[in-house]
């Protein structure tokens, strides 16, 4: 692939090459040097579980158990690498494809499916996981992330003098999102307010069917130059580099130095969603090219060569993945349909006459209806 502009792989930070050989980077290597073999095994485990879950969700959708599914296939390294750089005082704003990040935040993955089964719009308590709900309106959450970061700053969680107490926000979005006014405003508000926020753009090369060339004629990381915030392009299929760059970026933001833009260059190996048909807009050759760059395979090769991926561990994780799949399958079917009146709940925090009246009417109506038919 000798693509140029936003699809070129020029200037990507890389710590594992595509054959799984370890590389050095004069600046970023130090931000991965704390990684132990156990850490790498954890990365490998999390990437493997994410993919197993993802595939299970896709088949559940095919079986009619979910209305839709949004696979993260191929983006596991970008997500697990960056997610592992997040620590206690930080806060994460995902878009809607960050199942890998969700796992690193301690979300029980099957719970994500409630929204795709149509039970509710969000199924975890964000403050419990420092992980906001998914946002489907492209780019809207980047402003929430920026405001949240401004508030962290005010709350003394940045450059407090005790680095271990400091926090920052990391906000995920896609290549397509970079065209939205909101995302650009978020970059501007963050820059002007020196907000501690890492903008983490997963350039998976497509906004549904549109290649990134429809959003930009330069690498997306350049957007940072426009507003004066540092930006980095990282190989998003390299979990170690994704970790290192995110680790640096979060430290930078926590230290009070301001926002950072990270572009993780990756590839969406699956369909945009289960409703999508990628054969309409990309070639098998393209897909094959990227299959060779599968982020899990790359890490596996490296760890095998380094002798840090023992068979027992692989087997253990394989079992865990199988178990997760099984549990997901079973769990989904046990969820009761929400009660009808739930649609009136939480519209407002305080009573609202219109909601109350409509709810009362609905309950009367339902009762009369039941009575008539009983």
């Amino acid at each position: 692939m000798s693509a140029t502009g936003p699809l070129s792989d020029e200037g990507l930070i890389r710590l594992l090459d595509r054959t799984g050989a370890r590389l050095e980077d004069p600046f970023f290597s130090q931000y991965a040097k704390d990684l132990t073999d156990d850490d790498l095994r954890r990365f490998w485990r999390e990437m493997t579980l994410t993919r197993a879950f993802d595939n299970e969700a896709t088949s559940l959708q095919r079986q009619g158990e979910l209305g839709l599914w949004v696979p993260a296939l191929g983006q596991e390294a970008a997500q697990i690498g960056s997610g592992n750089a997040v620590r206690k005082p930080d806060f994460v704003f995902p878009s809607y494809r960050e199942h890998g990040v969700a796992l690193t935040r301690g979300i029980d993955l099957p719970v994500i499916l409630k929204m795709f089964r149509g039970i509710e719009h969000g199924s975890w308590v964000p403050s419990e996981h420092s992980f906001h709900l998914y946002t489907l309106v492209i780019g809207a959450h980047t402003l929430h992330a920026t405001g949240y970061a401004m508030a962290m700053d005010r709350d003394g969680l940045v450059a407090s003098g005790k680095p271990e107490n400091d926090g920052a926000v990391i906000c995920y979005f896609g290549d397509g999102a970079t065209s939205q006014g909101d995302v650009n405003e978020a970059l501007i508000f963050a820059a002007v307010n020196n907000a501690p926020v890492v903008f983490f753009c997963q350039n998976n090369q497509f906004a549904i069917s549109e290649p990134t060339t429809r959003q930009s004629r330069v690498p997306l990381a350049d957007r940072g130059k426009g507003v004066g915030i540092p930006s980095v392009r990282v190989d998003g299929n390299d979990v170690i580099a994704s970790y290192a760059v995110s680790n640096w970026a979060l430290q930078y933001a926590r230290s009070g130095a301001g926002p950072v833009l990270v572009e993780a260059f990756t590839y969406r190996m699956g369909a945009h969603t289960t409703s999508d048909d990628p054969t309409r807009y990309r070639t098998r050759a393209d897909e094959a090219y990227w299959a060779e760059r599968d982020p899990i395979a790359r890490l596996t090769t490296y760890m095998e060569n380094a002798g840090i991926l023992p068979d027992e561990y692989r087997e253990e994780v394989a079992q865990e993945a199988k178990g997760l799949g099984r549990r997901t399958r079973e769990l989904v079917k046990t969820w009761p349909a929400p009660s009808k009146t739930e649609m009136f709940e939480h519209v407002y925090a305080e009573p609202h006459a219109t909601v109350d009246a409509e709810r009362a009417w609905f309950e009367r109506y339902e009762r009369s209806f039941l009575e008539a038919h009983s």
Partner: protein
Amino acid sequence: MTTMTLAGAINAGLRAAMERDSKVLLMGEDIGPLGGVFRVTDGLWKDFGGERVMDTPLAESGIVGTAIGMSMRGYRPVVEIQFDGFIFPAFDQITTSLAKMHYRSRGAITLPVVIRVPFAGGIGAVEHHSESPEALFAHTAGLRIVSPATPQDGFDMIQQAIASPDPVMFFEPKARYWDKGEVDTDRVAAQLSSEGGASSATDEMAHARVAREGSDVTIVAYGPTVRLALQAAALLDGEGASVEVIDLRTISPLDTETVVRSARKTGRVIVVHEAPSAFGTGAEIASRVTEEAFFHLHAPVLRVGGFHAPYPGSKLEHDYLPNLDRVLDAVDRVLMH
């Protein structure tokens, strides 16, 4: 006459409009090689090329804003907003620029932009994919708001909307995309090729249709709820109540004449739409009917719509939306008087 789905009819209508006038072009997200997420533009990119079927950057304000600029040079952009819930980033461009340019230029500039919006629910979708925001546009002068309910109207009205010199918001009931119907493809072609075609097309698009005649109760519906109203009417027929169904087709202008005529006849009116009742289009319809037919009404105009709550998870949409039981319940209530 050909059998077509609503989606197919709109697709055929777009194709006809593009063949008729080289200034017609399509803009939107994923409308090119993919053919749109609902495949409404299927095949058009292949046949007309990327210059006329443009995949745009992912930014709705940008799409509508650049469409405005293009139409200032005589182009007739047909914009696809991917889903109802994603029209809001373009709200400013639509409300303050698109709607007002003709007025503020005292007629010197016309903006023949059509904004296609797959809207409403009932397809088991995730959040923001089932909204009915039509009332939010109807309140703004300068926009025409229409919604086809049948393949015939899909085919005709998309061409009429494109031919109209005014901006048109074209709300497509996505749950009805795969419903089939007979389509006469000749009539609108003749209309548009005749002298004053654009005017008569605009005028025709501004009229409601009596979809079924009746004498006891009038049900006013549009877009996705027309089928529901007809189902209710058919069912009630068996029970001895004669229901007139009006397929509004146009929300701005409201075809008050047709609705009021029916209201005077039946004395009982129900408005059914998917959008929340509160501050919805039904309020305007009810108010106009009441203003103009007050002394003919036997009962207040009733509204059957969504509730004052965000569109819920799809497991609840059947209960959130007006459904057959709720329409029948409303009919019972107006017939009590």
